[in-house]
């Protein structure tokens, strides 16, 4: 019996080792909690969920008002990412509330929020915490009388075909999204005080946000390209958030539907939704644009050991390796704009690192003629990439007293004068004493 118990304890203690989850070495999210209003979404949006499960995500579907849901247990998060496909929920069940979602993001986890027209105050509050504000009118939708999608089921031009993407390959993938993306839902604006939130898909300049059922009596509060349809946030802790005002853009109906933009003769067989949302969820779930820096080294030119201290005017070489996570492995990151700073209160040296195209970056420079405690700093912040912030402290000492040059030819006249003064003193002493 005791033996059995021992085996059982051993087995349970090993379970965490086998389960894959987000870690610095393996930064893709694995366990995803999907909160839905009702389980019909599971089948009506199955193409999107299918693309996630086929990439290895473990999706756990729960009703948003399920009393047993919780993001963490015993202080450990149960999930790496949270998907809120529950635009109309008034109150989450279990222990989830806005504060716990914010804490979830603050501890580095990812979030996808899809609202819809008639989005609840709760979802709006979550969005506000993330730096975007949905149109306050609950019945408002984004309307565009010029860039709508031609279809046979929509007469009020709320089905928008948008192709105004952010120009960032890291977020949307290197393959160009050819077909416009179908969108039907509520628009939002970015909080100007929040510098981390980015518009990924913005409405055209002819769009506005209003209630399509009623007559437009007042000028709409949100108009033109200030309306964002899909936004992303990368927090300072590299947590990523996707916010959109349309749940239906994830649906199978929109994925499969053809799209023809009003006024355009090109009819695309398939809308851009699938490609767009697949690529952007790769970004959100850290399958792309996640950098790591390893092997930070520095040494004097011609040596290989890392010294504990440098002397002023030493020539040194600094190198670092930067890799990007591709979802399955670390690939070399190639760029020509990585810079290193030799920093003490302000950068004394700022140098662009040269790369060997295999992820290895290096630069040679001369230690400035200033001594003190310096830092090697790499502050690399690029749109869509996780930020790299490396710093390594290194003291710099002045010359030792015996390291200065001596007997300089240029100084010989000065030496000569000093010695001639001594000789003069000697002779003068004799002359002064013996001349009477």
């Amino acid at each position: 019996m005791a033996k059995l118990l021992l085996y059982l304890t051993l087995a349970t203690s090993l379970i965490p080792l086998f389960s894959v989850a987000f870690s610095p070495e393996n930064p893709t999210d694995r366990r995803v909690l999907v909160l839905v209003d009702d389980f019909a979404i599971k089948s009506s949006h199955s193409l999107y969920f299918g693309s996630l499960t086929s990439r290895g995500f473990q999706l756990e579907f729960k009703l948003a008002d399920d009393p047993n849901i919780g993001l963490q247990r015993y202080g450990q998060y149960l999930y790496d990412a949270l998907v809120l496909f529950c635009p109309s929920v008034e109150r989450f069940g279990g222990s989830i509330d806005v504060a716990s979602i914010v804490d979830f993001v603050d501890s580095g986890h990812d979030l996808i929020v899809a609202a819809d027209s008639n989005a609840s105050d709760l979802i709006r509050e979550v969005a506000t915490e993330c730096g975007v504000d949905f149109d306050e009118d609950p019945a408002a939708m984004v309307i565009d009388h010029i860039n709508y999608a031609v279809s046979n089921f929509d007469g009020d031009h709320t089905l928008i075909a948008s192709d105004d993407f952010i120009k960032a390959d890291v977020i949307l993938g290197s393959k160009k999204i050819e077909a416009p993306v179908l969108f039907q839902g509520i628009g939002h604006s970015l909080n100007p005080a929040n510098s981390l939130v980015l518009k990924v898909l913005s409405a055209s300049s002819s769009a506005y946000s209003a209630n399509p059922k009623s007559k437009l009596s007042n000028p709409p509060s949100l108009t033109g390209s200030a309306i964002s349809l899909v936004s992303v946030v990368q927090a300072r802790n590299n947590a990523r958030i996707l916010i959109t005002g349309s749940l239906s853009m994830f649906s199978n109906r929109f994925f499969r539907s053809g799209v023809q933009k009003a006024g355009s003769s090109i009819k695309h067989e398939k809308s851009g939704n699938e490609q767009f949302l697949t690529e952007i969820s790769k970004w959100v779930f850290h399958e792309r644009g996640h950098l790591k820096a390893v092997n930070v080294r520095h040494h004097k030119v011609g040596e290989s050991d890392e010294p504990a201290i440098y002397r002023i005017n030493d020539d040194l070489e600094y190198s670092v390796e930067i890799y990007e996570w591709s979802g399955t492995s670390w690939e070399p990151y190639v760029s020509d704009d990585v810079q290193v700073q030799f920093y003490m209160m302000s950068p004394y040296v700022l140098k662009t690192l040269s790369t060997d195209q295999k992820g290895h970056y290096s630069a040679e420079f001369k230690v400035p003629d200033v001594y003190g405690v310096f830092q090697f700093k790499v502050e690399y912040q690029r749109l869509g990439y996780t930020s790299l912030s490396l710093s390594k402290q290194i003291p710099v000492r002045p010359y030792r007293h015996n390291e200065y040059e001596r007997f300089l030819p240029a100084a010989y006249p000065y030496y000569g004068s000093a010695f001639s003064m001594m000789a003069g003193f000697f002779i003068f002493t004799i002359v002064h004493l013996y001349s009477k």
Partner: protein
Amino acid sequence: MARSTGKDAQALFHSLRSAYAATPTTLKIIDLYVGFAVFTALIQVVYMAIVGSFPFNSFLSGVLSCVGTAVLAVCLRIQVNKDNKEFKDLPPERAFADFVLCNLVLHLVIMNFLG
């Protein structure tokens, strides 16, 4: 008045020379020594102006050794001058011993700073 300027200057020069000729030999030797030190200092300043101030500590010690020597010699001259009533109680041997001691200290410092 203006015509006689050249003659006046000559007369002044002559009176100075004759007055200086009456100066004791000891003081004349000291004057020569001071002149030598000042001249060496001037040469070094000119040299520094030509080649630049790179071994600046050497330049400073070279020039300061000359200036210091000159200043000490002038001090000695004041003290051993018989006409100077201020130091009439001070024996010239004591003044000379002070001079030697100060010079030793000066040259010790100069050698340290010469680099």
